């Protein structure tokens, strides 16, 4: 039985562009995945190309034509089929991209440690910030699901990401010049962690200065239906009434609107307000409440009398 996301989790996703489920996948499935791809020590890796070739030749990860239904994609009983059948993963996918989602692409990202670059006499660099996979002005959104079969320590780099950037429309590596962005985070996690990114979220692979190989299995999923109240089929969500602005009442409890209106340290003073407006517009699409507002951002400028 799929465990659909809560309205709080959806608001978190709408505002930050990401959700995480720590240590969700059990140890046995993580081991099966690693055994299946032939995980080994870095000393036994001669070249990146040979390592990938071996995984592609021997693992149960199938070649999946773009546009294949997720439910038909992975062999029954395979580690990936178990992961996607997990009630929390299944529920999060159904909440965000629906029950008939299709696969855009998948990839097993492998980040090699310093030892490999020394052996190969190559400069070891982190991956620059980017947004997958080309300029995308749609209101519809895709998600990228990340699975981490091993622990990821700080030294292993982790996937770097920038919460709240998902609604900024940029063109892939057009953001590569931003080496560091205030509030940047890296996915440092326990084995079996699942992350879900809005397809617009800015990110990049961190440099791995540990002794171990880092794996991240990624699948990009597309919806085939409108992404409206998918997490709330009984349509229980109702927008909250207006509240006082600036001269506020701090005694009030935090609400969904506080999650939606969270700011980030990288946002410019002026554009931060547009970022909030875009979160409200996104929330209108997700909830189907086409006139709803938070903190009067859109009501104020929709009051056009001429």
């Amino acid at each position, binding site marked *: 039985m799929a465990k659909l996301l809560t309205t709080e989790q959806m608001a978190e996703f709408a505002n930050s562009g990401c959700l995480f489920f720590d240590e969700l996948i059990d140890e046995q499935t993580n081991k099966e995945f690693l055994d299946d791809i032939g995980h080994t020590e870095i000393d036994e890796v001669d070249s990146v190309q040979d390592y990938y070739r071996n995984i592609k030749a021997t693992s149960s990860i199938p070649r999946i034509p773009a546009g294949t239904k997720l439910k038909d994609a992975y062999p029954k009983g395979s580690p990936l089929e178990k992961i996607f059948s997990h009630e929390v993963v299944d529920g999060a996918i159904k909440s965000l991209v629906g029950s008939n989602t299709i696969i855009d692409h998948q990839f097993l990202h492998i980040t090699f440690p310093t030892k490999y670059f020394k052996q190969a006499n190559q*400069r070891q*660099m*982190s*991956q*620059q*910030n980017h947004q997958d996979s080309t300029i995308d002005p749609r209101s519809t959104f895709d998600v990228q699901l990340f699975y981490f079969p091993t622990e990821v320590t700080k030294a292993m*780099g982790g996937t*770097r990401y920038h919460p709240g950037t998902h*609604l*900024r*429309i*940029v063109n892939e590596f*057009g*953001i*590569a*010049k*931003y*080496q*560091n*962005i*205030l509030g*940047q985070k*890296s996915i440092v996690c326990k084995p079996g962690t699942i992350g879900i990114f809005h397809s617009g979220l800015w990110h*990049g692979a*961190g*440099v791995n200065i540990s002794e171990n190989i880092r794996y991240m299995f990624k699948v990009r999923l597309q919806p085939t239906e409108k992404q409206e109240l998918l997490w709330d089929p009984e349509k229980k969500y109702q927008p909250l009434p207006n509240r006082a602005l600036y001269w506020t009442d701090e005694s009030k409890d935090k609400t969904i609107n506080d999650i939606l209106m969270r700011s980030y*340290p*990288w*946002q*410019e*003073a*002026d*554009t931060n307000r*547009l*970022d909030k*407006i*875009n979160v409200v*517009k996104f929330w209108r699409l997700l909830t189907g409440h086409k006139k709803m507002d938070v903190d009067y951002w859109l009501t104020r400028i929709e009051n056009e009398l001429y």
Partner: protein
Amino acid sequence: MAKRQKVLVLYLKLPSLEGEVISWATFDGTGKKLHMTGDSDEPPYPTGLDALLDGWRLFQASQAIPEHPGQEFRTSYLKHEFFFEKLEEGDF
């Protein structure tokens, strides 16, 4: 003695050098340090003005471009970009 250029790019919270640093990149033409994406979580200076006070010379700043009609709410790249340089002499 040869001269090499070090470049510091700061993205500020405001279109004024008084603005706080929200993003930064460093490219060291002396070869002494290899900077890369994600290599520091703390900005090198609190504001653009602090970089000037430390001897960095400003050589380019982003222009204010009015939003295109109909695209007023579209957000995209970081807006307030400032390029600084320092020249360093040495045997490179």
